[in-house]
């Protein structure tokens, strides 16, 4: 009896220690990066234009990160949700379904640099758009779309069968059941999926090197709303270096004495944004669960 109790204590302590170690590692990383950037992270750094030799700012590349995130979401969210609904509600188990599943898993495991090279051929050269935000977003969509579809499918499958049967037994059609019961109940899960994949898109660099380009942008005129004008920051047909790509670029080929400072500041900013997505995902999902299940 005693030995059983000792084993129980040991198991509990070991698992606690492992969990604590993971937590400490994360905390150490955040503290290290934020500490290194403490003097750099000012409004002029976050919003300002980059400079050739001086510290400058990361305003335009930060904008590009959010812009590409938006563009990618515009492509992958509707298509991913539609694909998820098909996989969860309509696809019968069979050759086509297992082929789709295989493709989903295979694409998710392709190294992103390879996706970038594919994007260079398909979205940069074949389309004739050159390095552009749109080409970059399409490259990001390559691995985000299957992920979005998978997360939606899981969220839909988590809706209890009881609720589905209740709807059908009331004489609703299958589509009415999906539209009015299954999807509303899965929305918290789907939204969490969107925001968490946003973190991955936001931090992705390799897939964008050969697709969205490496120019150092400055002088964005946000009042220029013509999306077809390559000079407008709203245009998808212009090169768009993102924050993550900028970190790589500065570290590998930056000049001047502020290189390390810029990289540290940009890294901390990137980390804070991704952390923000994660915390935001939890909060939004909690609010949605509360609102949908309460009223």
């Amino acid at each position, binding site marked *: 009896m005693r030995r059983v109790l000792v084993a129980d204590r040991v198991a509990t302590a070991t698992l606690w220690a492992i969990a604590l170690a993971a937590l400490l590692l994360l905390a150490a990383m955040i503290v290290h990066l934020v500490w290194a950037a403490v003097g750099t992270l000012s409004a002029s750094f976050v919003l300002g234009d980059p400079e050739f030799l001086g510290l400058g700012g990361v305003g335009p590349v930060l904008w590009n990160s959010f812009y590409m995130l938006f563009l990618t979401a515009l492509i992958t969210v509707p298509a991913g949700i539609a694909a998820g609904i098909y996989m969860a509600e309509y696809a019968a188990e069979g050759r086509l379904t297992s082929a789709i599943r295989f493709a989903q898993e295979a694409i998710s495991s392709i190294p992103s640099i390879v996706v970038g090279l594919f994007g260079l051929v398909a979205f940069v050269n074949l389309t004739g758009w050159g390095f552009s935000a749109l080409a970059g977003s399409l490259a990001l969509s390559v691995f985000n779309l299957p992920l979005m579809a998978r997360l939606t499918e899981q969220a839909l499958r988590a809706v*209890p069968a*009881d609720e589905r*049967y*209740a709807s059908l037994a*009331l*004489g609703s*059609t299958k589509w009415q059941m999906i539209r009015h019961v299954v999807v509303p109940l899965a929305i918290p899960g789907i939204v969490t999926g969107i925001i968490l994949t946003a973190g991955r898109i936001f931090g992705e660099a390799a897939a964008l090197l050969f697709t969205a380009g490496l120019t150092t942008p400055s002088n964005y005129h946000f009042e220029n709303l013509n999306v077809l004008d390559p000079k407008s920051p709203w245009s998808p047909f212009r090169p768009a270096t993102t924050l993550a790509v900028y970190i790589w670029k500065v570290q590998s080929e930056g000049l001047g004495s502020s290189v390390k400072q810029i990289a540290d500041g940009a890294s901390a900013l990137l980390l804070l944004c991704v952390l923000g997505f994660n915390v935001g995902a939890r909060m939004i999902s909690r609010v949605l669960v509360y609102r949908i299940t309460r*009223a």
Partner: protein
Amino acid sequence: MTADLGGVAAPLKASGSRSSLGQLAAARRATLAEDEALVTKMEATSLNVSYAGRTVVRDVSFPVISNQVTAIIGPSGSGKSSVLRCFNRMNELIPKAVVSGSVRLDDEDIYASGVQVVEVRRRVGLVFQRPNPFPMSIYENVAYGPRRLGERNRARLDEIVERSIRQAALWEEVSDDLRRKSGLALSGGQQQRLCIARVLATEPEVILMDEPASALDPIATLQIEELMRELIEKYTIVIVTHNMQEAARASDHTVFMSMGTDRAGYLVERGPTRQLFSMPTHKLTEDYITGRFG
């Protein structure tokens, strides 16, 4: 086939044999001792159900009489729920389920080609064993069916919701926070009455109940039974239960099913509840209702 049928069952049974339509119509009306006109609302004929090749219901035939409570009783595994689900084609949702035989609703085979399953389920509602309200407000739960049928008028929806909740004997308890309170925030018995109200809102003709009180306490159970007695004024009810007291108290007609040696459920005996419980013709029925097996 069960040949030894007593009382009302026999003439109604005759209507089950597939004779000419004229004979069917003539046989549909039978008279009870009290001279009460009985109309067959639904009728199962030679019903077989199998799941993935395993037969779970074999050759079950019985009528469901209009404005009465028909109880299907029997031990676990005798196929009671499988039979019930045939009455509004819910078996089709179970992969690899095969149903043969026929189920008639007002003399129309609900399995015939061209029959809209959505329409069948609207006319024949189902209350589940475990209360399963949607995680929405009480109002939205009840309005769900009518909304899916295309009702948009707010005043009419309000009226349907209130009428259905009143019919389900739930109005006094929930009228104050129809829109604020989630259906899930109600007690088990209230949830089940909400589910009944939700079915009533689609104005069905028949209400199927799959052990509706099995998850409820004795008081809530009695409330559901009282409710059934009130509802048969306007509706026809088929209830599955393995609670014999419940069948004896609440039903007019009882169908007793058991499990054969091949584990397929079959119909042992059926008849007016009072008769089946007081003078069962089968040894098996007697053993079951006296609690010797089951």
